């Protein structure tokens, strides 16, 4: 019940903010900034985000710089370049999460292979099942 009211209030605040931005003639973000926002959001909500927190923080900082450029010099080359950097850093954050996950899979697979080999090799190297008898 309470959660519903809070959700409704949030929607109203969001709608009011959009309306105010429209009345105030807020500048339209460049396509680069729009793309950077999407990419940073994608990296932030990725299931692997917690494996690349420093990279994600860097991407968010770069996006904040791009947003600041947008406020100061909307549509400028400075805004577009800062947004480009933010987008690339967000992509890097997402791939870094994947890298960490891949590395973990590789490590565990190697350990399993080594354990398996260790359990098989002594029996094979000693004739007559000597190892098995001990």
């Amino acid at each position, binding site marked *: 019940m309470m959660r519903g009211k809070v959700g409704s209030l949030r929607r109203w605040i969001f709608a009011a903010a959009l309306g105010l931005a429209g009345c105030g003639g807020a500048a339209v973000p460049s396509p680069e900034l729009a793309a950077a926002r999407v990419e940073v959001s994608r990296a932030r909500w*990725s*299931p*692997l985000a917690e494996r690349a927190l420093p990279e994600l923080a860097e991407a968010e900082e*770069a996006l904040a710089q791009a947003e600041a450029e947008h406020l100061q010099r909307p549509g400028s*080359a*400075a805004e577009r*370049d*800062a947004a*480009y*950097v933010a987008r*690339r*850093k967000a*992509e*890097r954050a*997402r*791939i*870094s*999460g*994947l*890298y960490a*996950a*891949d*590395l*973990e*899979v*590789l490590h*565990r*697979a*190697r350990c*399993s*292979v080594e*354990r*398996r*080999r260790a359990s*098989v090799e002594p029996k094979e190297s000693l004739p007559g099942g000597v190892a098995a008898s001990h």
Partner: protein
Amino acid sequence: MRSVTSAMLVALMVGACAGAAPVAEMSRAERAISAAQEVGAEDQPASTIYLLLAREAYTKARERLAVGDTEGARRLLLRAEADAELALTVARESSVRDAAERTLEEASHLGVSCVDQGRAEAREARRAR
């Protein structure tokens, strides 16, 4: 080589007149490009495009420096660094993924029981992409 050095000197002199030359940004971009090359980003289809973009931005930055546009050069160097860092990460991820797949295959031949779990995790990671 001499012409490159001269161009750099001219760029730095012009930069000194127009504003501080982005020496730190240039050095960081160069290091990032070298690091990406060292991990073989050039040879991997997924990462080569980012390395090319990094080099292109770096070249353009030097051209901007030569005409005294230090601010434009600085921004291009930041782009070059970001592209090169992404190239490095993509190349690393790609080679670790290949190694993981090969090891899982080997584990499967050896009859290791946790292979299915490892494959499921790898699939999950792919889905997160």
